[in-house]
Structures are given as structure tokens and as C-alpha cells.
């Protein structure tokens, strides 16, 4: 099968987008952007300076009031235009994502669709941000109104696993509600957001409304510390999420900081095994296990363990790895050499602690892509609750197979985890399903669904160490995060 064409072989030195202009960074620190499938260097990203970040914040702040005064329906019109342009650029967005992140083209197309869905939801802003009124609400002849108002400048610090979708969990809602915005994409995968920002520019958003600043922690810290930034959204690992939450809060910001995960998928004896295995393959191996909603622990309850494991091994052996621009590929590489090393260390550790590696992806080599960071699908049997691999986030295509006596045991185990992002149950029993969704303390629950990814009109975040904050990303929570309620009490003599 011939590869789909790459949009560009090399994207050169990236610029920042500030106040409606593409500007060169003055930094002397640049990072190479690597294609994780081929090992090729496909561009360079600047580690922008503190002053450059401050300039973006000032530009966003300067643009804010006029944007706030723009009627919501006029703001919405720009999102309709943006949606139309994104549909036209759909395939290019997906292919750039494959090039810089390593996911398969189908995964990238799916992500592009979800990215657009956030624009579609934000385009409904005139209805979504309406306030409410009550005649005689305060007393006889005294009316009371609650008005939903924007706050100013917001910013997002984004991870590498979803280069398009995650910035769009936030900025469309912020901007649609009348705020201005700064996105700092992951320096490992800045190309997709760079391309999408060009589409935003083409759609006609006024200067300063959306700004793009490439860089590292200097950019993030400047956003968190700057008095004109009202709030920060973050997605990444738990230690960094904790830092972002604390540091932003210390500086008086609103914060939503999404952290790591350790998701368990529980298979009951009455599960439909064929459908279950097909669905779980996408959960554990999709995006090479680098979703915060990816399955990690597979908990087989009772006598389902042996038949489940047999089918799972059969399915795993059929997973085809390669460069995601080959449409027949099921799984791409992990994002970097560092990420690969970390995944391999977890597999080594599990073996040392007594687990048995049934399918070993540590030495996987994909012909023609020997420089790619591929880790093959890996199945580890005999994992017990005390092992490191059962408790820490691996972020790779590794299945920790665990056997438990009952659903209660599985739920107890899930509750001992410091994370609470997602958990799923596979069963044909409504009773078990109801019990599971009622009792399990996670932000996202799947019933015969292995990737519990909330749609744009539903909120997304986890519990416990998977999330720091209160209002989640997307949906009505996003509207609330980016606005405040102003109460007006009126009396006319």
C-alpha cells in the first residue's frame, strides 16, 4: 500500500502568531521537531522568550474589550466560517498530525473531527451563554438579572498526544464567550496547531483574539504569573498538573489542570467476548497507548480470564505497526525515543517483579522505519495489584492482565489508584453495569466502551490525581470556566 502524501517534507522554522501577525522569535533556543515514525527532522520550534510571551499577553489584553463588545452572534459567525475552512483543510490537518505525532491516519482523522466538533459547539454561543432574569426577583417592583460575562485573557498549555483536539477543548469556548486567548502547543508537536492557526487567521478573527506562542516552561510560567491572564487550562502529566494548579492559583488565576491516568477495563464473565476484544484493542493500542483514556490494566473477573486472554493474544498478534500514512496500519510509534525508553523500563520492571511477558513489544522493528520509536503491542500476564505496572501510568501499548474473583475486587482495586480518569466494564448484565457506574469514582465511565472520550457538548476531566480544578473542559463547564456571573438588581422609581 502506497503511503499518503505528506503535506510538506519540512516545515522550517516556526513562527509565533501574535496580534494577527506571524513573527519570528528572537530566541537562540530551538528544538527539532521529529517525525516519530521515520526519525526525520521536519522542522524547528522556538523556545520563545519571556518578553515575547508578555507581548502576546499584552496584545490579547488590548484586543479584549472590542472583542467583548462584539455581539455573540457576530462572534459565532466567525466560528461557522472557521468550521467551513477546517472541513476544507481536513485531510491536511490529519496528515500533519500523523507526521509529527505518529498516530495513524484514521486516528488523526478522528481527532480532526473532534476538533471541528468543538468549533461547532462554540458556534452556538448566543444560546449557550444566555443569562437569566426574574421579575420581582429581589422584592416587589425590584427585578433581578444574572448576566454571563467574559473575563479577559486566558491561556492553554497543551500536551503532545492530541495536537489539534486539546487546544480546541478550550480556546473556541473562551473566544466565543468574548475572551481572548493564547495557546502554547506542545513543543514536540507544534505543527498541527501552527497549521490550524493559519486557518483561524484565514477565517477572519481580528488581531490579538487568538495568539500562538511556541516554547517551554518559560512561556507557561509567564502566563501563570502575568496579572492580565485570568485563567489557565492545562493537560499533561500529574506532577506538572499539580504544579500548574498550585502556581496558577497562587497568582490568582482560574485553573483547570488535567493530569495522568491509569485506566482499568473490567471484563465480566457474561461479556460478549468477540465484541469486547475488538473494542478493547482500540483502547489499549490506539494512539500507541498514548491517550489519557487508554486502557492500561485489563481485569478479568472469574472464569472469563483464560478465554479472554486467548482471544486477546490472537487479536494482538494481528495488529499491524507502521507509519500512520499507510492506511492499513493499526498502530504507530510512541512520540519520542525518551517515551519509548520509559515504556520499555516499565515492561522490564514488571518482569523483574514476577509478571510474565506473553507478547513482547520491546524489540519491535518495523521494516523501512528502523529509526522510528516503535514499541510493539505488549501483553503482560500475572500482574498483581502491588506491582508498579498496575499502578503507574505507562503511556504505551502495554496491557497489564490481572485476574480477580469479583467485580467488588475490581472496584476496590480501582479505588486504591491515585488516579480517577476512566474505567470501563464489559458485561451483558444491566445490574453489573449500573452497579459499576454508580460506585466507581472516576470522571469517565465506559459500559462496553473502552475509550470514554466525552463529546464536545459534554464536560471532560477525571477525578483524584487525574484532575485539579472544578470546572471541566468542553461543554457547559467550559462556558462557566471562561465567564463570570454578574447579578444586577434594578428598581425604577
Amino acid at each position, binding site marked *: *500500500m*502506497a503511503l499518503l502524501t505528506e503535506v510538506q517534507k519540512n516545515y522550517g522554522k516556526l513562527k509565533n502568531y501574535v496580534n494577527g501577525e506571524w513573527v519570528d522569535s528572537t530566541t537562540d533556543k530551538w528544538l527539532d521537531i521529529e517525525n516519530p515514525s521515520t526519525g526525520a527532522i521536519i522542522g524547528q520550534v522556538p523556545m520563545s522568550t519571556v518578553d515575547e510571551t508578555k507581548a502576546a499577553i499584552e496584545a490579547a489584553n488590548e484586543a479584549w474589550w472590542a472583542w467583548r463588545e462584539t455581539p455573540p452572534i457576530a462572534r459565532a459567525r466567525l466560528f461557522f466560517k472557521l468550521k467551513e475552512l477546517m*472541513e476544507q483543510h*481536513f*485531510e491536511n490537518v490529519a496528515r500533519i498530525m500523523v507526521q509529527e505525532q505518529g498516530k*495513524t*491516519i*484514521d*486516528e488523526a*482523522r*478522528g*481527532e480532526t*473531527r*473532534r476538533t471541528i466538533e468543538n468549533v461547532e459547539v462554540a458556534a452556538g454561543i448566543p444560546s449557550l451563554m444566555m443569562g437569566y432574569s426574574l421579575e420581582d426577583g429581589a422584592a416587589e417592583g425590584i427585578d433581578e438579572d444574572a448576566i454571563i460575562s467574559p473575563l479577559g485573557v486566558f491561556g492553554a498549555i497543551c500536551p503532545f498526544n492530541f495536537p489539534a483536539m486539546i487546544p480546541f477543548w478550550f480556546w473556541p469556548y473562551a473566544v466565543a464567550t468574548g475572551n481572548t486567548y493564547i495557546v502554547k502547543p506542545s513543543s514536540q508537536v507544534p505543527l498541527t496547531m501552527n497549521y490550524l492557526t493559519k486557518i483561524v487567521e484565514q477565517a477572519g478573527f481580528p488581531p490579538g483574539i487568538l495568539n500562538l506562542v511556541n516554547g517551554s516552561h518559560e512561556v507557561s510560567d509567564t502566563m501563570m504569573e502575568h496579572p492580565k491572564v485570568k485563567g489557565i487550562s492545562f493537560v499533561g502529566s500529574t506532577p506538572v498538573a499539580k504544579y500548574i494548579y498550585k502556581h496558577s492559583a497562587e497568582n490568582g488565576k482560574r485553573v483547570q489542570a488535567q493530569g495522568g491516568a491509569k485506566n482499568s477495563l473490567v471484563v465480566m464473565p457474561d461479556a460478549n467476548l468477540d*465484541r469486547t476484544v*475488538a*473494542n478493547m*484493542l*482500540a483502547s489499549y493500542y*490506539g494512539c500507541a497507548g498514548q491517550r489519557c483514556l487508554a486502557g492500561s490494566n485489563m481485569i478479568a473477573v472469574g472464569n472469563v480470564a483464560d478465554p479472554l486472554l486467548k482471544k486477546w493474544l490472537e*487479536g494482538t498478534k*494481528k*495488529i*499491524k505497526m507502521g507509519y500512520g500514512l*499507510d*492506511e*492499513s*496500519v*493499526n498502530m504507530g510509534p510512541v512520540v519520542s525515543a525518551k517515551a519509548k525508553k520509559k515504556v520499555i523500563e516499565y515492561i522490564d520492571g514488571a518482569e523483574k517483579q514476577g509478571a510474565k511477558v506473553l507478547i513482547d513489544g520491546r524489540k519491535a522493528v518495523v521494516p523501512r522505519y528502523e529509526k522510528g520509536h516503535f514499541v510493539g503491542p505488549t501483553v503482560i500476564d500475572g500482574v498483581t495489584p502491588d506491582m508498579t505496572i498496575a499502578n503507574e501510568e505507562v503511556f504505551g501499548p502495554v496491557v497489564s492482565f490481572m485476574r480477580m474473583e469479583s467485580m467488588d475486587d475490581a472496584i476496590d482495586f480501582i479505588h486504591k489508584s491515585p488516579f480517577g480518569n476512566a474505567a470501563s466494564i464489559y458485561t451483558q448484565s444491566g445490574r453489573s453495569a449500573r452497579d459499576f457506574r454508580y460506585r466507581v469514582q472516576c470522571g469517565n465511565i465506559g459500559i462496553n*466502551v473502552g*475509550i470514554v*472520550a466525552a463529546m464536545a457538548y459534554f464536560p471532560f476531566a477525571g477525578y483524584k490525581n487525574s484532575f485539579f480544578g472544578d470546572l471541566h473542559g468542553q461543554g457547559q463547564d467550559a462556558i462557566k470556566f471562561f465567564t463570570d456571573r454578574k447579578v444586577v438588581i434594578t428598581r425604577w422609581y
Partner: protein
Amino acid sequence: MVECDFPECTTFGAVVRFSIELEKGAAGVYEEFAKDPAAASTAALFTELAALHKKRMAQVENMRQQKLNEMILEPIQDMNRELYLIDTRVPKGADAKAAAKFAMAIEDTSSRFYVDAAKIAKTIMAEGSRFMDKMGKENLAIKTKLAAL
């Protein structure tokens, strides 16, 4: 010969790509026949069918863009690529009847592909399944039309 590149049907995207290649192949074959003086009497019909298959190709691409959802990217393991390959080596100088017979084989194989793809899509995408089913039925209708030549 119309160049096609049929993938292994291991993912939904690959199934869609296979479908795009089928449509591209069929459109190309009809275009070749339409240009061949030996089948001049059916040139208009073949031109029309080439346009129809190009339209179908655009519909398939649109379906992929609008319906593909990363939540349902389950690996596909039950479609054997070899069963659905079409012959796009267009015979030169084929008269209308011979050309129709050649094209009927393409429509027949395509129909089988869509029927089987519809069954697979049913578990992951109801609308995609309906779309594939409709495509397969349309292939059979074209085949009947060709058989009448």
C-alpha cells in the same frame, strides 16, 4: 490499465480507501471504454457511468470525513483483500458487449465488497453501513443495465 492501489482491509480507514480505489478503478475503466471506437455505440453510457463512479468516490470521501470517529476505530480482521480485487487492465478493441461483460465483473465484485463492508460497518457505524449497502445495490443495478446491452 487503470492504476489502483488496494490496501489490506485492516482498519475502517483502509476499507474506505479500498472503496475509493474501487470507484477510481471503475471510473477509469469506463473512461477507457468510452474512448475506444470499438464500443462507440455505448460511449455515452460509459461516460455517464464513469461520472457516476467519480461521484460515488467523492461521496465515500465525504462519508469518511463526516462519520469517522476515533472512538470506533476497532481493528477489522474479517475482510480478505484478495476477494475484492478488480481487473482494471482494459482490453483494447472490445466491442460494446465485451466491454459490458468486462465492466459487469467489476460491478459484481464491487457489490460483494460493499455488502461485506456494510456488515462490518454495522457494528461500528449504522449510517456508514446503510451507505455501503446502498452502494452495493447500486452496483447491481448498473450490472443489470450492462447486461441488457
